[in-house]
């Protein structure tokens, strides 16, 4: 019962290119952001919030852009190169930041991302400065495509990648490792006393979240055709956290639900209230936090609980609901 609506939404999204072709690119961008938000949600499971994950988004986007520019660029290799770069940088930065928690964790991530942002602007001859780098359209299995065809392929690619990433992350969070990650939020001391290194556990989650942000960034780069330092700015990191809370930080679905709603609100706010689109977004955020801190997916769970009764007692075997789904 409670999976009917999600299934319907996925179906509806999947036929978008036929029904509403003009929203196809918007949805691709929403998927790209959703993937990055998924990375934020992984960290939120450990009770940590990063105000600098735009770093991985940007690292991957710039690497993808460079690969597409210098090697002619096949879509798959472009995306893979970006994700790999984000994961490697995530590992290096992660080793350092997993020693910190809460505000310090958030601030250090912010600092590292701002350094990268400044470097992108400084190393003008490599990065194109604030004008950014153009990303030539990659080939797909060797074929050079027109924009329309490419965008359709990218849309379905993004949809499949998002579903895969959501499934993988869901499994990860349900696995022993994922449960240990969530245990960091409630009791690190006990985790250490079970023989588990909280830092290594957090590091594994951190690298995963960096890779997810990277996947989002690389997708965004090829979908947009340009990468700019704005990809790394702190406001974008804040936006990711914003979307995570909007969608519901407790479930992997929240990342994509949030991203779709956010892009929608933002686009229409920018179109019909171009003077006050920031204010509109700010108010939406306030309303969500104060009246439904578990986000849209949390509201949906509550609604379904009321309509068809509680899912069933929470247990370790509960695979239908996302782990740690906000109550």
């Amino acid at each position, binding site marked *: 019962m409670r999976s009917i609506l999600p299934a319907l939404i996925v179906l509806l999204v999947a036929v978008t290119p036929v029904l509403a072709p003009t929203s196809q690119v918007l949805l691709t961008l929403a998927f790209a952001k959703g993937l990055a938000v998924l990375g934020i949600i992984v960290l939120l499971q450990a009770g940590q919030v990063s105000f600098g994950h735009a770093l991985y988004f940007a690292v991957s986007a710039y690497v993808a852009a460079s690969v597409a520019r210098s090697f002619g660029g096949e879509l798959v290799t472009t995306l893979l190169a970006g994700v790999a770069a984000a994961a490697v940088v995530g590992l290096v930065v992660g080793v350092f930041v997993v020693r910190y928690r809460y505000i310090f964790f958030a601030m250090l991530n912010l600092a590292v991302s701002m350094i990268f942002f400044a470097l992108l602007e400084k190393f003008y001859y490599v990065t194109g400065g604030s004008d950014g780098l153009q990303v030539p359209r990659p080939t797909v299995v060797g074929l050079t495509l027109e924009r329309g065809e490419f965008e359709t392929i990218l849309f379905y690619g993004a949809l499949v990648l998002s579903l895969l990433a959501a499934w993988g992350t869901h499994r990860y969070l349900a*696995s*022993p*490792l994922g449960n240990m990650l969530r245990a960091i939020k409630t009791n690190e001391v006990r985790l250490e006393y*079970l023989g588990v290194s909280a830092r290594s556990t957090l590091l594994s989650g951190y690298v995963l979240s960096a890779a997810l942000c990277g996947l989002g960034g690389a997708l965004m780069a090829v979908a947009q055709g340009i990468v700019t330092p704005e990809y790394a700015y702190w406001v974008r990191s804040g936006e990711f956290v914003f979307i995570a809370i909007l969608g519901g930080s407790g479930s992997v679905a929240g990342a994509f639900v949030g991203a779709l709603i956010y892009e929608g609100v933002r686009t229409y706010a920018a179109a019909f209230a171009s003077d006050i689109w920031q204010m509109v977004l700010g108010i939406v955020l306030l309303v969500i936090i104060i009246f439904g801190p578990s986000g849209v997916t949390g509201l949906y769970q509550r609604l379904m609980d009321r309509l068809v009764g509680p899912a069933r007692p929470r247990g*370790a075997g509960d*695979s239908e609901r996302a782990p740690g789904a906000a109550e």
Partner: protein
Amino acid sequence: MSSKVLMAAKGLEIRFGGVVAADDVNIEIHEGHNLAIIGPNGAGKTTFLNICTGYLKPHRGSVTFDGRDVTGLAPRRLVRMGVARAFQIPQLFTEHTVIENLLIAAAAQARRWSPLTPIATIPERGEMLHLLDMVRCAHIADRPVSELPEGQRKLIDIALALALKPKLLFMDEPTSGVASSEKFEVLDIIAKALAEAKVTAVFVEHDIGIVERFADEVAVWNRGEVLFRGVPGEILSHPDVIRDVIGETV
């Protein structure tokens, strides 16, 4: 004392600011002999547990386990060698259910890191349900631990330590927070589980009745020092102990 020495502390010293929490502590823990630690509040009992399990590093002295120097090793390294701990304030994963708590411990013990296998399906599940049954908590397996009363949380905390299949278990006031009418029953449960798993226990306890019944040896702490140690019958009737320790704590 002819049995094997499991853990030995030599010349432990630690101070916090001006307060001496351990002052030349020397003590041996023998395999199969459950040791009770008694003493007034602030005597350094928990500090001793913190040092033996790696939470604190002594300023001086050493700890050996199974003949190896383990001074200053992190808790997780000691855990992997077979030293587990239960806490005065139960340390649980409060956003997980009871069985999930235990499954995390089991997965850690069995080193199951596969990121795509749900924890609910690990082979140790049956074992954990049995462990819960042993501590009489099987009926609450699917409850979130945040909803449980203190007594049950205490039991889960100990079960988490047992799930690690330790050789040596430190327990910090296992019956605090448990209604006095249930204390013996609770400790009976624990003792039975310990015996079944062949675990040596070291426990801090205020209740002299419990010490008499469950300890093979008693050590008396005061101001960071071990004042006396011996079999419960002797120690608990020693006039100094009655005056300084039992008189205060009962």
